[in-house]
């Protein structure tokens, strides 16, 4: 059995099937008015199944896309409110702490000396207890 002749046979068969399909479709949709609707009504379940491509798209949307969108919506919300919130909270807390600490910078030497002295006292208390 030569490979080339098998290949040619298969090609010919495929071509013949395709041409048959085209011919049948031409007859059903062009030559006989209403034939298409009658056939569809007769084989309703089969027609609906083929018409909707075995519901592959619907299945795909329900099984994969919907959960995927749900997860991504959840992630987007998490990112926006929790992650961004944490980052912004860090910035806000840092800023507020800086603003509060800035209040100690009064410009009065006596206040500076007081802070200085508090540092000295803290250090000496530590050293005396060691």
């Amino acid at each position: 059995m030569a490979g080339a002749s098998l290949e040619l046979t298969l090609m010919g068969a495929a071509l013949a099937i395709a041409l048959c399909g085209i011919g049948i479709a031409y007859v059903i949709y062009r030559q006989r008015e209403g034939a298409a609707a009658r056939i569809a009504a007769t084989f309703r379940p089969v027609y609906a199944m083929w018409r909707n491509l075995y519901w592959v798209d619907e299945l795909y949307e329900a099984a994969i896309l919907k959960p995927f969108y749900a997860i991504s919506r959840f992630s987007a919300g998490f990112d926006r409110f929790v992650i961004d919130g944490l980052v912004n909270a860090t910035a806000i807390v840092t800023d507020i702490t800086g603003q509060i600490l800035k209040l100690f910078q009064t410009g009065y030497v006596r206040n500076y000396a007081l802070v200085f002295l508090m540092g000295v006292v803290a250090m000496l208390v530590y050293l005396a207890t060691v």
Partner: protein
Amino acid sequence: MLPVVILAAWGLLVLLMAPFFRETGRGFCGVVHTVGRCRYSAFSWPDWACVRQWPSIESEAATTAYGMVHVDRFGIYVSILVLAVGFMTLLFSARFLEREGSEQGEFYALMLFALAGMVLMLETTNLMLLLIGLEVFSLTLYVLCGLTRGRVRSIEAALKYFLLGAFSSGFLVYGLALLYGAAGSLNLAEIAGAAAERPSTMLNIGLGLVIVGLGFKIAIVPFHQWVPDVYTGAPTNVTAFMAAATKTVAFAALIRVLAGAFGAQSALWVPIITWLAVATMTVANLVALAQTNIKRLLAFSSIAHAGYLLDRPRLHSRRWASRRSSST
């Protein structure tokens, strides 16, 4: 010792010449200053070879003047660093002072005195001489801060720096008194011996007060609050000099004290230094965020950098301790 004498003598010379050259050319004092600096470099040229080696505090040293002057690679290295900072300050000082309409001769003389004080402070292991060096350059810097005396903020900066500087010097001197009382000497090596043989609370508190006194100059939290006001008010060239040179010198002195006298007592000062560093880094960076004036912002940035520096002695403490125990 000679370098210090040259710097101080040349400062006096500049001061004496300043009135005669007021009209003929203000730049002249700057020229004289530069010549003096070059003479300094020429005299200390043999020392410069030392810089190629790592400036370790354990390097061999030459001592003179009954052990008061102690020249080692560490001191020379930091001296050259400080003189380089002084030179860079000088580069933009002449035009700046001219624009501000302030005195030129006095500035150059005071700069030389400040450098003399700094070099003196770096080339000793005796705390008394260290204090004298500190006071020499501190007094000079108080005056330099108020150099542009037409400006209220300059005067305010000088006054604040002087008041708080006097306050901190009091603590430093009291600390030295306690160290002397506990150790019977102000020489770092002898204090180290006393700390090893008869540790006492008096010695510890003396160390704490010395850290306070030097910490004021390095500007570590909580002894930092004068920095933004003084750096903003002082003439910009003086600020630049202070921010780099003063901190470097005081930090070098702190390393000398910690390593030279309390190397074996690292358990005592490592927590203090570390917490001061943590406080400095945190507070300075946080307050820097809240600033709207660029000079104040940079002042806080310089405080924060002092904090990063201050974290380093901790890493060397073990080596210093092992050196001390192996030599005794």
